[in-house]
């Protein structure tokens, strides 16, 4: 059986675990722990400390694994391990929390340095009123015009599917040398 891996990364509370949960055929193997920091607890109650793990079986011989990285910087030693051998990666960004954009940029650069694999940026929570426009986010994240910045709602399966498909199209283009 062949297995392939995609990594879902991004800052703390960007929606990585939810993204994987929306499409995984198994309950996500989450390594969430109760948050001890008061500042972070005001955003959510539990966070990923090692990785999330979701699975999509393609056929008898092929399985896609989705790995979610821990968002907090103090767990960044995990990132390089998780990025090894990945087909591509998705950077999740919470469109309603501009204070995390700088960190998202930093994570993006770090992953690009680990492996020159294709990636897309998913602007999560685009269904919220206070979500930033994609164009503004693109500038804030300093994305070049070739980088795909996709609207996303991690709780909606179709939205997550679109992001995954766009990443796969990018991978296909890269193989074709476009």
């Amino acid at each position, binding site marked *: 059986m062949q297995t392939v891996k995609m990594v879902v990364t991004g800052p703390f509370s960007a929606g990585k675990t939810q993204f994987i949960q929306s499409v995984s055929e198994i309950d996500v193997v989450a390594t969430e722990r109760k948050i001890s920091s008061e500042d972070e607890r005001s955003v959510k109650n539990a966070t990923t400390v090692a990785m999330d793990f979701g699975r999509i079986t393609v056929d008898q011989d*092929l399985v896609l694994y989705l790995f979610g990285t821990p968002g907090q910087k103090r767990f960044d030693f995990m990132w390089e391990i998780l990025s090894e051998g990945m087909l591509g990666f998705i950077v999740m960004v919470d469109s309603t929390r501009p204070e995390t954009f700088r960190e998202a*940029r930093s994570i993006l650069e770090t992953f*690009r340095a680990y492996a020159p*694999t294709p990636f897309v940026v998913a602007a999560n929570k685009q269904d919220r009123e206070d979500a930033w426009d994609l164009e503004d986010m693109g500038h804030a994240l300093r994305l070049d015009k070739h980088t795909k910045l996709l609207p996303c709602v991690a709780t909606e399966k179709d939205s997550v599917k679109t992001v995954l498909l766009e990443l*796969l199209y990018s*991978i296909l283009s890269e193989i074709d040398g476009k």
Partner: protein
Amino acid sequence: MALRGNLRDFTITQLLNLINLASKTGTLVIDGVSEQAHVSFREGKLAYARIGKEDGNLASVLYKSNKINANQYKAIIERAGQMSDKELGLLLINAGYVSREDILLNLQSYFTDQLRRLFTWVEGIFRFENELLPPEDRINVRLDLENIIIEGSRQLRELEQLQDEIPSLDMALKFTERPLTNVNLSVDEWKVVKFVDPKNSMRLIARTNKLSEVEIRRIVYGLLQAGLVELVRPTDAPMPQSAKPLAPQEIEEKKSLVNKLIGRIRSL
């Protein structure tokens, strides 16, 4: 126990704080990446500082701060080369070229600047020599460290932010499509811009221009913010296994695999 260690574990700010609190007397010697620094203290106050080959003699300090002109500086070097700074200072005061306050203020400013430069050092081995006092032929100052420490802490926060923005100096830079016209750049910025090329990592550019990690990060951050450059992977960087060119058969296999994945995701 000797006070010695690595700046990676113990920052300059922490060191100065310790020297200040313990009212230490002696010299902090730091072997940096490309230079050595000597900073002397008396009872926890800054007395003297020099980095690398710049010995900070009185004549050069006064010349750099425009207190004496080029001819006067040349004459001092020729005629009073063997004189100690204390003797030279007295001579200049008596001759009416400078006042005592001029000398002290300019030396204080020079030593503080030297110390500020140290805040940008993140690598280096340090040791505190209790027995090593400032050179006797130099004029010592007596500067409280508190303000310098506060400023250093500010710089440290800036460094942390810059590291967040530009986590790795092993990345290279390339120009964006925005034309580089009508842009006012400083000398240091031009030095960096001159080497912007996907072949050159930021670490290489810093080394070539003798810029510290903080200095190169600060300049690159400015250029990034202005949209003039973007970060790219250096073209000559070793490619990870997965990025090595694929054989034609492998390409077809990989395409088939990705197409299978696309089909499956669509059907979810």
